[in-house]
């Protein structure tokens, strides 16, 4: 069976402008959402606060639950139902860091049972103090940054044989970020700056594969974060894990296409770059679609059957996989052209003659 017939030749590169427009609109929408929303919605992992998940052994009135909570002395809390309707399960949440010591669970279950007339069971308590939230927030940002950085080093090393250059670049960037973060510089700004510097450096050093890959990654993460925020979802630790996985996954897709582009450039060195890139996308299209489908298949199973705790995690991955697949076709590969276009034609020819040397080193490495 074949989803996509062999020899298919869709003119992706010719229509790359459409892709650019879609991407720019999506990114703009994502950034706008984040601005309007004043940043992403941080869950208690990052903002600090308390969540208590309670289940009753019979149907209860929402108001009675509220009364019980008030009776237990918890103030400024929001109450929402959790999971399926017939589960009688609720989520009590507050931005405040409740003192969960000293008979907290005992008192709360007793008051809830007294107010509702049904036995209450505390199934989950999560309390994160503000200082922990801050640590976790910084850790998450650093993790995203380092993942991006290491992956781009790997790409520029593997695809352009510039291990030294990219290694030194990365070393300086890491050193700078670590040094400045000691000086109490705002970390989100710092990392934003580091990413911009990385992109400018890649541009200057003409590391086109690394450039294409990192633009695609930033594209994927920004849009996923934007959509996630648009849906009113909260960021928690597992969501960061999902974002990192998207970075890995989206790159996976990109690399498969890049690999083919490199192979085709070497084999058909006289062909126009546009043609080589477009052929490569088409040749790997079947794989791209197939792998994304199987991944989406299992993620959908997780989304619908995995339970409420894992629900948002699966949702993030689904958004990310779709965006990541799109970006490896419409963003990462055309980016190669964008950089190529800045070089004069003669230089471009020279660049192509370099390729056999490159494959020689690679053969030795193999």
């Amino acid at each position, binding site marked *: *069976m074949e989803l996509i017939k062999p020899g298919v030749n869709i003119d992706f590169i010719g229509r790359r402008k459409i892709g650019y427009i879609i991407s720019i609109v999506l990114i703009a929408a994502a950034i706008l959402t984040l601005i309007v929303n004043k940043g992403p919605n941080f869950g208690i992992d990052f903002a600090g606060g308390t969540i208590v998940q309670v289940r009753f052994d019979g149907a209860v009135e929402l108001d009675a639950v509220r009364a019980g909570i008030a009776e237990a002395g918890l103030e400024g809390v929001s109450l929402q139902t959790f999971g399926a309707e017939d589960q009688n399960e609720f989520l009590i949440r507050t931005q405040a860091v409740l003192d969960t010591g000293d008979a907290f669970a005992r008192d709360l279950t007793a008051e809830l049972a007294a107010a509702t007339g049904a036995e209450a069971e505390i199934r*989950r308590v*999560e309390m994160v*103090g503000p200082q922990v939230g801050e640590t976790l927030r910084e850790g998450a940002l650093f993790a995203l940054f380092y993942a991006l950085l290491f992956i781009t080093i790997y790409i520029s090393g593997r695809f352009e044989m510039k291990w030294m250059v990219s290694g030194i670049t990365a070393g300086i960037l890491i050193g700078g970020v670590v040094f400045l973060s000691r000086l109490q510089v705002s970390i989100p700004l710092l990392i934003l700056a580091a990413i911009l510097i990385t992109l400018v450096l890649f541009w200057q050093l003409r590391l086109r594969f690394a450039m294409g890959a990192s633009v695609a990654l930033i594209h994927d993460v920004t849009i996923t974060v934007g959509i996630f925020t648009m849906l009113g979802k909260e960021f928690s630790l*597992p969501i960061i894990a999902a974002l990192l996985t998207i970075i890995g996954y989206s790159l996976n897709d990109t690399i498969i296409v890049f690999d083919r582009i490199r192979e085709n450039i070497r084999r058909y060195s006289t062909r126009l770059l546009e043609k080589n890139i477009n052929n490569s996308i088409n040749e790997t299209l079947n794989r791209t679609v197939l792998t994304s*489908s*199987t*991944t989406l298949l299992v993620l959908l*199973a997780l989304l619908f059957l995995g339970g409420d705790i*894992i629900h948002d995690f699966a949702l993030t991955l689904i958004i990310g996989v779709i965006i990541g697949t799109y970006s490896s076709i419409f963003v990462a590969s055309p980016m190669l052209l964008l950089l190529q276009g800045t070089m004069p034609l003669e230089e471009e020819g020279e660049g192509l003659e370099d390729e056999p040397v490159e494959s020689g080193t690679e053969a030795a490495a193999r």
Partner: protein
Amino acid sequence: MKWLSWRILLIIAVIIPAVVYVLPTFKPTMWPYNQINLGLDLQGGMHLSLDVQTEKAVESTMERTRSDLRGRLRAERIRSVEVSDDNTHELAFRLINPDDLTGFRNLVERNHSELRILSEDEQNGEIIVRLGLTDDTARDVQRQAVRQALETIRNRIDEFGVAEPDIRVEGDRRIQVQLPGVTDTDRAKELIGRTAMLEFKLVDDEHSLQRALDGNVPEGSEILYGSAEGEEGRQPFLVRERTILSGAYLDNARVQIDQQYNEPYVLIDFNREGARIFEQVTAENVRNRLAIVLDDRVYSAPVIQERIAGGTARITGNFSTQEARDLAIVLRAGALPAPVDIIEERTVGPSLGQDSIRQGLFSMLVGGILVLTFMVIYYRAAGMIANLALVLNILLIAAGLAAFQATLTLPGIAGIILTIGIAVDANVIIFERVREELRLGRKVASAIEAGFNRATLTIMDANVTTLIAAVVLFQFGTGPVRGFAVTLSLGVLASMFTALVVCRQVMETVYVSRRMKTISI
């Protein structure tokens, strides 16, 4: 052929240990290998992060130093008045006679290497000297406090009886406690978080309690409140600040039942030195009251009837049997060197853990079957081979979890599910290549050969990036998220192995060595 047998050996060398590691999880009695560890989110339990208030340890060191220094100043006849202020990290003395400054300096240098002089100001012919702990000392005290707190908490938990607790220092001053399977979380938190500072102090009956309550607390005394909350609030006591005896002199603590009132109390035994001090103090203070103070609450203040030898004392206070037992535990384990704050708590009840396991496994099953079906429809016979690899993949992840004693968490299960989706990728890349080679008119054998050869590097490249993301995640992540990083990395490694080694071997055995002319792919 030599190459071929090498690969078969490798497959055997991987699969047999994998089976050996996995089996005990499903049949624990099989052999004494470890089962797969379940994270707190799956088996239920409590995770706590405690912040050790190390500055309090510094303060109490300061307090001890202050009384030492005062004693020495008296002994050396340096006339001075202590200037009291709110700054608990500094000491200040006013020297009545400026000529004493050199003597003061020498005294500090000789006996108090932990102190340094911050400033010497002259004011109206008198000199005010400010002192603080040296940075090294302060750092040592803080480090020591965290280490001691860890040790104390570990002792308490050991006595509390939790299977496989995990207690470790995290960063400079945090302690992380993981208690799997704990259901009475309130009690566990009380046990862990209680400072349990036991002190014996004499009650100050010379001064009026009422006047002290009005704000005239006499020098050297303080107001403490009782442990029991009556109708009029807690009962106040005026006690001497000086601690006569503390929990540090304790040898043992156990629960006894009062025969008369049938009420439990905690009987404490002092060690030899403690017993000696106790005997001396009680002898000197007959008819006075002695307050038994625990964490700044007066539990009782009995009148000393006579000299008490033998070195035992009892703490009463309307305890339930369990409260008394817990108090005995914390007293035996010793006081925390500084109070701790719970700054993070994550508790999962056992029923929620069960639900998570059930839902996780169910979605894994459904997702797996969907993918297996898809692969067979799409690649027919070759799809079957890919499916074999997929099943093997899950076996290898499970074996990896058991072998490395990694922890399986809910996101970890999600990681396995995700891996099922991603794992077929390697096979898809290979099969698509083989199809391409076949379309170019190659024979089956050479198409398989070329397909694998060309796909190998691509697969490596593609998987390294996911591996990088997983390693970063492992570095930064905590608990459940770490579990995800572990299963994701294991999944990536396993899928490379099954696709590049196992699948290749099976395809070569089925198609190449039997010289098949057609291939179902």
